[in-house]
């Protein structure tokens, strides 16, 4: 197990390094922070002074290596736009994103998996066909359009949920959370549903195909022949065997939700990190974009690691040496 962890760690560092180079060079090629930040009434000297204050007047290599040496010391740099250290800027917005991501994943699992198992077990029923139709629709709707539709229905027509913003928060251990607050929950619901719809559809399909496959396995036939009652059959024998793909996908999807729920956060004005990423790309705020993506790579590495460990727990045949 230890050598597995070490190997993973080594691979991940290389990945992070490559990633940082790509993003750094990419941002350098595409946009110029001085051009975005300097207003038109800056004189030429002001622009030169600004470039040197931001440190972007140095050659790219020099900028990159100074960035790298700072990162090693835990300093991800200072945002060009906000003039604040980058790490707190991102971390401060993380709880908002995490809350919605977890809620969306929870909704996806709690609705998707039972629907999928039901569909897998009752293949010929009309409800199954309806579910299958709805999941196709849910899959295909563009996210931003669906978000506007949700706002239109729940906020504009029915006026039951707020259209945007985060609402009241409760401070817990110094972190602002919406979970423990009615107003916060109301604000969280629409963005979470918007993210969850796709997850529900995916989990339903995954669980259905898993169920269909597993139900015809010899061990299931044997278990049935042994007279195991149906609830136990589903819980112990079916669920456990369809869980591996579901766990994999859920892990990846969680990462995806945390990292790239930009569209949803933008439409609902949810002050999370996805919105920060988009604003930062827009404003040529390279330190934020680079730090953000490095953190995201690290997060995926951790999530994948957790997923691998979960495999071993779920399937005794899997061992890491």
């Amino acid at each position, binding site marked *: 197990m230890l050598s597995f962890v070490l190997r993973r760690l080594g691979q991940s560092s290389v990945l992070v390094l490559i990633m940082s180079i790509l993003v750094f060079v990419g941002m350098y090629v595409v946009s110029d922070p001085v051009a975005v930040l300097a207003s038109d009434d800056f004189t030429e000297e002001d622009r030169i002074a600004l470039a040197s204050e931001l440190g972007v007047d140095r050659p790219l290599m020099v900028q990159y290596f100074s960035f790298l040496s700072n990162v090693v010391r835990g300093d991800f740099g200072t945002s060009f736009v906000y003039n604040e250290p980058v790490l707190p800027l991102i971390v401060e917005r993380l709880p908002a994103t995490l809350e919605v991501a977890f809620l969306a994943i929870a909704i996806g699992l709690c609705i998707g998996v039972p629907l999928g198992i039901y569909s897998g077990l009752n293949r010929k029923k009309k409800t199954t066909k309806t579910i299958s139709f709805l999941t196709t629709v849910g899959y295909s709707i563009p996210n931003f359009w669906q978000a506007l539709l949700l706002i239109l229905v729940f906020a504009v027509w029915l006026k039951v949920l707020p259209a*945007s913003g985060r609402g009241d928060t409760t401070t817990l251990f110094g972190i602002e959370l919406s979970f423990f607050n009615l107003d916060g929950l109301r604000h969280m619901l629409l963005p979470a549903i918007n993210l969850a719809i796709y997850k529900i559809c995916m989990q339903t399909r995954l669980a259905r195909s898993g169920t269909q496959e597993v139900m015809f396995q010899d061990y299931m036939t044997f278990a049935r022949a042994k007279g195991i009652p149906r609830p136990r059959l589903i819980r112990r024998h079916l669920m456990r065997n369809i869980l591996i793909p579901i766990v994999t996908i859920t892990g990846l999807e969680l990462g995806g939700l945390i990292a790239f729920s930009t569209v949803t956060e933008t439409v609902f004005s949810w002050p999370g990190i996805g919105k920060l990423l988009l604003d930062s790309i827009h404003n040529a705020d390279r330190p934020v974009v680079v730090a953000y993506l490095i953190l995201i790579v690290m997060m995926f590495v951790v999530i994948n690691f957790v997923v691998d460990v979960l495999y071993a727990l779920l399937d005794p045949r899997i061992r890491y040496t």
Partner: protein
Amino acid sequence: MKKTFTTLAAVAAVALGGAAQADVLRMAYSSAPRSVDPYPFGGATTAGYKEHIYEALVGHDDQPLLSTGWTWNSPTSLTVQLREGVKFHNGEPFTARDVVYSACRMMFKIDDKRNLLTSSMGPLTDVVAEGDHAVRFETKNPYPLWIQKMKFLSILSASGGSVPDGPITYDATGDCGITAYPTRDDFENGDAAVGTGPFKHVSFAKEFAVMERNDDYWGEASKWEGVEISSVSNSGARFAGLLAGDYDLIENPTSEDITALDGNDDFDFSSKPAWRTMFVVLDVNAEGAPGVSAADGSAPLANAKVRHAMSLAINRDAITDRLFGGNAAPANQYSPSYRAGAPEMPALEYDADKAKALLAEAGYPDGFTLQFNAPSDRYPNGTRVAQALAQYWSRIGITVELNTQPWSVFAKARKAREMGAFFYGWGHPQGPAQMISFAFATRDKDLGLGSSNYSNYSSEAFDAAIKAWAVETDAAKADEHVGNAMRAAMADMPGIPVYYTHSLWAHRADLTVDGRQDERTSAFMVSYK
């Protein structure tokens, strides 16, 4: 089924719906104010937010605000009389010492980063308190524009714990003997957010700011007990938030939103001509311009006839009527014609046949090839206007290749001077001449002219007029110079003015909005009908 649904919805609405407080104005900005600290950042929303809390010596309407007037002692020395009887939110009286302190703070670099006004304060050599109610500004060159620049010098109270007692002596590093300036946190938690404005800071998070009325305001106190500013960058979501009742007023609704309000009794929109000119910048370099080529290898844009032909080809009325539904006005010069101090100019003609003839006369009967660049995400309807312009030019025989790109990419190409023709917008909060002094003057470091001259334009007549304007402290004479400069530039047309934008607000129908021209949104302009 339907009935159950409605009942359910009603129950949910009662259970979940927050009651709207009638006397708190809830506004949605189109981008988030960047800080409570009034100095480091510009941008319309940051400025719009901070004006609730802080005031300056000169108001956004060019009129005295925390001052009662000013006199030029000499072309390099201005004395500003301060308003008496003004109190800060902390109860301290407003005096000349606060102005000196604020000027020091503006020059002081927090974390080695310059503030919004640092460059504008460059010509200042001294800021001196003359008694409690007058301040003298000394400059190294005549600097009449300082009157406009004072709008951006938000006045802070000099009464914080870290400011030593006694008079403050200004210096250009902003050190001024002050041991420590308030930090970003001091501003965000409200300790340092002490101004003289009609509202007081309550809380500030990046997408949500809350303020309460300043009951001791020196002027007429606001009718609003409080103000909440949300920031919703997505225009669809902003509009939906208005319809859903989350906000009372939103800024920058789209043309589609305005159309959707047609026949809606609950919501309305207000429009105000803004101080922004949208124009096409042309690179008039005789050596040729990037992305522009003619069959004979010449530089078409260097020929004034070509530039006039391109202007003649544009039907400005069609653009303002069709694309903006009348919420924009055809331009006839670089500054909005309604900006105080702008000269009277004739309307710009639209005549495609004449344009074609002029193009032929210039030696391009078969046109030439032009890459036309426009930012895709910067200006309302920007891409559509760019397409329209490209079509107008195609009609007179120019082969136009339209290239739209995100603002950050566009800004880089512009700075690197990689674009021979591009679409651009420029605001004029500091009078009609400030923009053209940067955009069309031959570069002059000492006077700070021509730093954004992407046209590579150079004209003796224009330069002479703009240089005379830059040092003229007499307002009437300055306006004359502006007129001369404007006429010189319009005759050569290094850029083609297209239209003046209008600022738009969508709001509850029971509100009246007396909009501002500087593209900012504030609670002062909103009242009940």
